[in-house]
C-alpha cells in the first residue's frame, strides 16, 4: 500500500464523518451544560468528554451522580450503557483484526456509534480495502467528531453556568436519553425491553439510588432476548 492511498482513504473518512458533527455538536454541548448544572468543575467535565468520550454513558453516569448513587452503581449503569460497544469491537475484527496494533488500539478509543456505523457501511461497499486502509478510514471518520465532542463540551460547560434554573436545564438529561431511545425501538422485542425497563424501574424506586435501575436493566435485557427468540420461532 502506498502512502497516497492511505491518505486518500483517510480523507474520504473525514468527508464521510463530517455530517455526524450535526449530531455530536449539540449532544456534547448539552453534556457540558448538564454537567455544570450538576455541579461538576470544568476540569472534571473535560475529563469526562476527553477520557470516557461516550455520550450516552456520560449522561448515564451524570444522572446517577446527581442522584448520589454509590460509586459502584454509577460505574455499573454507565458501563452497562457502553456494553453494546463490545459488539462493535467484535464486529470490527474481520475488518481490522489484521491491522497494526497501534491502529487497533487507537480505533478502540474512537469507537463510537457514528464512527463504527459509517465505517461498517464503507467496509461493506469497498471490500478491496486492506486492513490498514480500513483503519485509516475509521480514523478519518472519527477525526472531526472526537475534537468537536471535547470542544463543544467545554463550550456547554462555560455557557451552562450562566443560565438560571427557570430554563429547566435539569430536564436536558431526560430529553437526551429519550431521544436516544426512540430510534432504537426497531422491533417488538426492543419495545418490550424498553417497557419492562420503565415498569421495573418505577416499581423499584424505593430501593437505594441506582439499584432499581440495574435490576430493571437485567429484567429488560432478558425480556428483550426472550421476545426476540419467541418471534424467531413464530
Amino acid at each position, binding site marked *: 500500500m502506498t502512502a497516497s492511498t492511505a491518505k486518500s482513504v483517510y480523507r474520504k473518512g473525514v468527508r464521510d464523518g463530517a455530517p455526524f458533527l450535526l449530531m455530536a455538536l449539540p449532544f456534547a454541548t448539552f453534556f457540558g451544560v448538564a454537567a455544570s448544572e450538576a455541579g461538576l468543575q470544568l476540569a472534571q467535565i473535560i*475529563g469526562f468528554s476527553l477520557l470516557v468520550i461516550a455520550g450516552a454513558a456520560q449522561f448515564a453516569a451524570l444522572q446517577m451522580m446527581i442522584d448520589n448513587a454509590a460509586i459502584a452503581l454509577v460505574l455499573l449503569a454507565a458501563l452497562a*450503557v*457502553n456494553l453494546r460497544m*463490545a459488539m462493535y469491537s467484535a464486529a470490527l475484527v474481520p475488518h481490522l483484526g489484521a491491522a497494526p496494533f497501534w491502529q*487497533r488500539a487507537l480505533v478502540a478509543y474512537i469507537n463510537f456509534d457514528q464512527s463504527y456505523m459509517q465505517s461498517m457501511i464503507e467496509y461493506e461497499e469497498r471490500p478491496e480495502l486492506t486492513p490498514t486502509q480500513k483503519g485509516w478510514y475509521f480514523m478519518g471518520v472519527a477525526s472531526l467528531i472526537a475534537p468537536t465532542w471535547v470542544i463543544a463540551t467545554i463550550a456547554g460547560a462555560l455557557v451552562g453556568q450562566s443560565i438560571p434554573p427557570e430554563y429547566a436545564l435539569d*430536564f436536558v438529561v431526560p*430529553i437526551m*436519553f429519550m431521544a436516544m*431511545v426512540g430510534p432504537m425501538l426497531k422491533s417488538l422485542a426492543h419495545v418490550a425491553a424498553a417497557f419492562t425497563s420503565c415498569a421495573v424501574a418505577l416499581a423499584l424506586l424505593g430501593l437505594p439510588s441506582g439499584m432499581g435501575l440495574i435490576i430493571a436493566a437485567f429484567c429488560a435485557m432478558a425480556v428483550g*432476548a426472550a421476545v426476540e427468540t419467541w418471534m424467531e420461532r413464530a
Partner: protein
Amino acid sequence: MNYSSAEIWLIIALLAVGTYLIRFSFLGLIGDRPMPPLVLKLLRFTPVAVLPGMVAPLALFPDATGGETEPVRLASILVVLAVSWWRKNALWGILAGIAVLYAGLIATGQL
C-alpha cells in the same frame, strides 16, 4: 451531588478505563473467536434496557418540582419519544421536545 473531588476523578478514571477495555476487547485481546449467541442477543438490548428505566422516574417525578408530576415536562418527554421514533433520529426528537418544553413553560407562566 455530594462526592468529593477525588471520588469524582475516581469515577471518571474507572469509567474511562472500563469504556476503553469494552471497546478494545475483541479487537485487541479476544481475537476472532465468536461469542455465544445468547450473550450477543442480550448485549444488543443493553441501551434500550438501561435508558428508559432512567428516564421514566425523571419524567414522572422531576427533581425541579420536588418530585411532583408536572404536565409540561411529561408532555415534552412524550413528544421526544414520538418524534425520535418517527424520524428515526435523536436530534429531531430533542428539538421537538425542547420546543414543547419551552412553549409549555411559557404558556403556564413558569418562564
